[in-house]
């Protein structure tokens, strides 16, 4: 079972945290700090797995973002890397070439997508199509409710997005090879 997942930037800023075990806030902060420091200190070619307390840490970097999962002894490290990858693919499909800013500004969406992929620390659904369909259905419900049209919003804000792409975009090439 996965115990938690953390997303943080190269600068050490936490972008998303999902805990599948109950810890007091103080402990969460301590764990987060400790892991961010440990992982940022590691060199690129190092192993993606490390032993930490009685857990296994699996992490991977996508452009400016680090994805880090803590799993239990009997869990499969390689497949956890692919859980991360599937999540990135989902974000990528949903946001259209996702970048760190998408996750900052739409953190709630990032949570909703994660909740479709993993539940209670276990994989719930692995099919990309099925998950995106579920998220689309949620969006549809929202859009019906919303006063403003989503299309106009996108049109309005595209200008900013270009800027972010050049500086922050996740490196597609790197990721998919």
């Amino acid at each position, binding site marked *: 079972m996965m115990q938690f997942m953390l997303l943080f930037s190269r600068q050490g800023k*936490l972008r998303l*945290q999902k805990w599948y075990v*109950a810890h*007091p806030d103080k402990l969460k902060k301590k764990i987060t700090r400790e892991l961010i420091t440990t992982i940022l200190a590691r*060199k690129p*070619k*190092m*192993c993606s*797995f*490390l*032993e930490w307390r009685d*857990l*296994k840490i699996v992490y991977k970097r996508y452009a400016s973002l680090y994805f880090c999962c803590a799993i239990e*002894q*009997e869990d*499969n*490290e*390689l*497949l956890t*890397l*692919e859980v991360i*990858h599937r999540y990135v693919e989902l974000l990528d499909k*949903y*946001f259209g070439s996702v970048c760190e*800013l*998408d996750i900052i*500004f*739409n*953190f*709630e*969406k990032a*949570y*909703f997508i994660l*909740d479709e992929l993993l*539940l*209670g*620390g*276990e*994989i*719930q*659904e*692995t*099919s*990309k199509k*099925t998950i995106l369909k579920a998220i689309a259905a*949620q*969006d549809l419900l*929202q*859009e019906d*409710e*919303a*006063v*403003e049209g*989503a299309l106009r919003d*996108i049109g309005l*804000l*595209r200008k*900013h997005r270009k800027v972010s792409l050049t500086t922050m975009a996740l490196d597609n090439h790197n990721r*998919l*090879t």
Partner: protein
Amino acid sequence: MPAVRGDGMRGLAVFISDIRNCKSKEAEIKRINKELANIRSKFKGDKTLDGYQKKKYVCKLLFIFLLGHDIDFGHMEAVNLLSSNKYSEKQIGYLFISVLVNTNSELIKLIIQSIKNDLASRNPIHVNLALQCIANIGSREMAEAFGNEIPKLLVSGDTMDVVKQSAALCLLRLFRTSQEIIPGGEWTSRIIHLLNDQHMGVVTAATSLIDALVKKNPEEYKGCVSLAVSRLSRIVTASYTDLQDYTYYFVPAPWLSVKLLRLLQNYTPPAEDPGVRGRLNECLETILNKAQEPPKSKKVQHSNAKNAVLFEAISLIIHNDSEANLLVRACNQLGQFLSNRETNLRYLALESMCHLATSEFSHEAVKKHQEVVILSMKMEKDVSVRQQAVDLLYAMCDKSNAEEIVQEMLNYLETADYSIREEMVLKVAILAEKYATDYTWYVDVILNLIRIAGDYVSEEVWYRVIQIVINRDEVQGYAAKTVFEALQAPACHENMVKVGGYILGEFGNLIAGDQRSSPSVQFQLLHSKYHLCSPMTRALLLSTYIKFINLFPEIRTQVQEVFKQHSNLRSADAELQQRASEYLQLSIIASSDVLATVLEEMPAFPERESSILAVLKKKKPGRVPENEIKENKSPTPVTNHNNDVNNSSAVSGDLLGLSTPPTAQPNSGNTGVLLDVLGDIYGGKQANNSNSATQPVNMYNPKKFVCKNNGVLFESDLIQIGVKSEFRQNLGRLGLFYGNKTNVPLQNFVPTLSWPDDQASKLTIQMKPVEPVLEAGAQIQQMINAECVDDYTGAPSIVLSFLYLNVPQKITIKLPLTINKFFEPTEMNGESFFARWKNLGSTNQQRSQKIFRATQQMDLQAARTKIMGFGMQLLDGIDPNPDNFVCAGIIHMRSQQVGCLLRLEPNKSAQMYRLTVRSSKESVSIEICDLLADQF
């Protein structure tokens, strides 16, 4: 600002932009406080706040929380959103609750009602929202409220697949919280049959659930084995186009495959059904075959997913440990990975091979890769991979390759990473002992260890070499000669001095014939190191010297001279002073016969498992490194020349007792240790004062023992319980002495430990069991070992139950194991004290203060005694006010050390005290403050 999907909240996006534009931390905090004030006033005043606005503000609060700030309002508004009829509002409400609400919150009751409504909804999206929330919080209350609903949802034919998936995992989460919620009976087979479901997503989720259920009750869920094997077989024989979206980078259903392989590791291979077993082996073979096929894609995702399944299959093969052919094939496959260019694969292959090495079928196959593994240990760039290589070498070591592996590990140790040295030292020590056929080799290895990595050689290691030398005649002369040579080095490690001192004290006579190592030379060599050593080592050396007087009467005056020098104020340490003067007197008064009896050669130690192994196991809570396979095959020659020394007294693994102050082990018979030669010097009063009728009856004052280690802990008409304890670093050892004061035996005499689970991991306790009958007038001893792992509060208790004249009795006594026992006193001058004091006081989190009225008469001398007994160093002359007490100390825990400063200011006119404690850890400050404040 990027585009926002769904119904984007402009206000939220603007706020996030503002925060990102803040130039400094201060500006950010200011902006956040402004926003918090705004939201607070909106929530308070504006009754007409619509759902959209509520949602927006709740979302802002969530964002602020995720930035790391505390949020103490808005929970009610979030709960209100749950009952909104707009999905987007509901969804944000649920998100807020999942992230911010603790399992024990008062709000849970309110939330439960909303969840109930959504669970009953006809819209699967709403139902899933509710299920996700239950799974996210997963509290006991949730388990009680929904324990009936969710299993029904899971197996009902009407439930949609997406809901089934969530229901399975939700149930799993609740099951982890509260095991009783899973219904048995017909439910079992319905849950198992989810493995046959059409929908791959449902099967994947259900397999996770079943895996957990099987762990609790393997017999009941046994039916899942054949279903799991069939399902697995269908997947591994499927082509990658068959499973459509469940094929991941050309690998069919890797997640489900891994889950199924995991599930099967809960059972031994299905022997009673050869059909199932055959099919399973076919699956495993197919997976191994596929590993040899050329990759269908160059992408790392393809190879990761494929190898994830392969590694899990290998785990299962190792778990089953019955098919030699599969084990060897697995080993060959892993061997190929050892030189793969992916670091991740090399790491996992080394780890997996460790397990293969412990199977008798594949042990030999693993050994073929020894050279590559040694290279990995030396050449890998990443220390975690090197660590795996060390583990594997340890696991693959047996009699045939021990010498080579130990030598390679020793070579590597000289340059090894600091983080793995200590563990490597333990491993080398264990292997050398286990596979030694020639004990001179063993002695050489250990002395090399001390030379190369002396700082990392723990006591267990050097105690052990001494035990082994003492127990084996054939190696004693060699050991004496070797340590003598090792001590010639101008700079040798203190641990070498300890081993050398002990061995020469026992067996120096065996090499005294040679002029180059005559008694006088031996003595001078040892004494030349004396001044460079810690008090503990000096104490040991003094004992060696008195033994020299017995062994070599010719250097008596030379040795006595040294005792004389150290028996006075020149030895600042009271223990050394006392030892020197008593040894001196002993050498003057006692006749040579008496001397020879007192200082007789040490008897053999009882044979037992190496305590080093226990240390190694403790260091690796996650995975216990193994080197077990050979245990049964190669009986280590144990030539104990004194096997019949039947020693019944409970002696734990340490050789010198626990600490520098001599350990009084009452009645420890002939294992009486070296430092005990003169018995109980520090002399806690022996607690076996069983016929003292004048003692007050029912005496029990646990508070006293916060500042005291030895004494009578409890006394009644029936029983007296005495305690003696010693602490060093983060370890403690307690001897409890139960004395029966009556003239009948106490039956069913059982002491049990009472120590809450949450604390028990922080202070681990091991108790030796005692005989169930305590004879009339007799006294028995119980040893308790404690290790401080992390900071804790309070202290464990012993619940003692027994029958006195068939009337059950029960006594609960708090053990003197409060956290201050793990203090090491720290000497420092005024300047550094105040610098640290200031440093630690900068935040509230580090200090704790109490101002309280004196409950006893204010006697500063008595207060002084108490503080000194508390364990910290009392620093005199630092505080300008001579009445104030200032102390410093370090608490030792396994993982960390917490420095701690303390100041106690008595105010006589007001009859008040002010106590301030500062440490690097808030919880420690509070506990230390509470413990000490209670004493005055």
